[in-house]
């Protein structure tokens, strides 16, 4: 599956979600979510714990199956496509709790998405040498090149987060979901991750930042979306969305 060719313009619609719903038994995790993401945007997605943020990412990326709603990615409907097919189309995500391949070193961790996503797309074929080079390149971008031959168990928390991001970036995505990549990190570590994400966005990747750390979200996002209990209650420029009375109520209580 080729990554979607978007032409050169920004501002055109990249992802269009209509009426997305997900239940777990009797529990409604997501209730009719509508969402549009434009190419080049930096969308911040916030909400209290359990509001459905990760569920939304899981549904969009194919890890979970949504019961209702349609998802259209650059004009192509995603319904019915499973996770690895969506990744090959250009949707990538990092996991909230890093999920590295613990039996391999960092280079092989990066090699997997290169072999199975980039090389799987028609017309793209990287030689083994090119792949090895690209692995080093990607690890250098996140300052992990010196630990390239180590295993994930030798990494610190923030390094694991960076590996997680590097692996997602290796798929050459058009749209990247960064799911709580900064939880539990120190201020300087947060800055580090934000810098990486900013640079990726400048290179043309549309980014959805799911976070709890308000300062990071506010400084990073061009648009803010707020989820509470499976409903979207705000969607607009960050400063406006924050001042929405419902958002205040959700975070601060009545």
């Amino acid at each position, binding site marked *: 599956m080729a990554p979607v060719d978007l032409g050169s313009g920004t501002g055109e619609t990249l992802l269009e979600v209509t009426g997305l719903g997900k239940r777990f038994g009797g529990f409604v995790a997501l209730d009719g979510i509508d969402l549009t993401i434009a190419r080049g945007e930096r969308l911040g997605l916030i909400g209290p714990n359990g509001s459905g943020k990760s569920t939304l990412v899981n549904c969009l990326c194919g890890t979970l199956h949504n019961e209702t709603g349609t998802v259209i990615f650059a004009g192509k409907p995603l319904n019915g496509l499973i*996770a*690895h097919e969506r990744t090959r189309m250009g949707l990538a995500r990092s996991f909230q709790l890093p999920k*590295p*391949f*613990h*039996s391999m070193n960092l280079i092989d961790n990066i090699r*997997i998405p290169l072999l*199975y996503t980039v090389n799987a797309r028609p017309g793209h074929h990287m030689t083994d040498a090119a792949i090895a080079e690209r692995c080093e390149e990607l690890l250098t971008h996140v300052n992990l090149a010196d630990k390239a031959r180590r295993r994930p168990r030798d990494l610190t928390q923030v390094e694991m987060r960076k590996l997680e991001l590097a*692996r997602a970036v290796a798929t050459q995505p058009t749209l990247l979901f960064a799911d709580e990549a900064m939880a539990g990190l120190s201020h300087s570590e947060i800055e580090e991750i934000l810098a990486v994400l900013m640079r990726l966005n400048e290179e043309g990747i549309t980014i959805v930042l799911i976070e709890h750390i308000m300062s990071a979200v506010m400084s990073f996002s061009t648009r803010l979306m707020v989820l509470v209990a499976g409903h979207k209650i705000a969607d607009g420029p960050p400063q406006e969305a924050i001042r929405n009375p419902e958002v205040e109520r959700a975070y601060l209580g009545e």
Partner: protein
Amino acid sequence: MRNGTFWLVIGAVGLAFIVLTRLFLTNEYFYFAGYVVIEYIVLSTAWNILGGYTGYTNFGTGAFFASGAYSSAVLHKLPALVHSTFGVTMMPIPLPVMILVGGIVSGAMGLGTGYLTLRLRGVFFAIATLALSIVVQTLIVNWDFVGGSRGIYIIRPALAPISGGYIQYLFTLMTILAVIAVGIARSIERSRLGLGLASIRDDELAAEASGVPTLRLKLVATTISGALMGMAGAPLPYYVTYLDPASSFNLAYAVNSVAMPVIGGMTSWIGPVIGSILLGTIQQVATVTISSALNLLIVGVLLILFVIIAPNGIVGLVRSWRRKRDF
């Protein structure tokens, strides 16, 4: 070591083994016992492709192994059936062909079982393989053409295609199969497929999110694993000359094919080889001295102990000992 070189090396080792044993070993018992040990090399290596490389446990080795054995039994009786039904004389089917057929039958069974259960979590696949063994046994028990529960007598051909006794011929074939199995296992290990399987083992969700087509790869592993087990079972009727469900579905096959890779080490091709040579030889010696049930009990206890204390097997122990030494 490059893969091509590896094939040459194990091919040479296998050839040397066959030739040297033929030249110097005349004791028939060695060939009988050796056959079983080498059979286990094939079974453990096959099991490990799905178990150690991919992380999916198969408890139903018996089903795949016995399917290979019984497909040979069917092919063995085919000429007589064809003759009595159509009056046409058909050549007896050569054993290598039976081995291929056994591989196809068991490979298809692996594919089918996988297709039905691999979309779910690994534990359901494991449970399904346990039940599969019982079901295939039930089918065989109810199938009169292959003797049902009474079993079937298989008469070995009078002459072996190579000089020497028939048992030496079986031994030779099994050695070749072992070389092929080990070669395939290592090729997979070093290939793109092997890396993909390892990613599935390490974290299936992350693998899928990285673009790995997990279901497809799992099906490939299950089919290859099942096929190799079926090929190992195909010569069995000629080895035992009396084939019946009780012995071909013997739980020993299921336990050993799990215990040998676990004890040897699941992450590399060499683990199953070590485990099967070690455990297989011990069991062959023990069967003579102690009862076969006690023998199996020891295997079961060893499995439990290793799984708790040394989950990476002997290979894992050697590796960590080496690491400690380097500090």
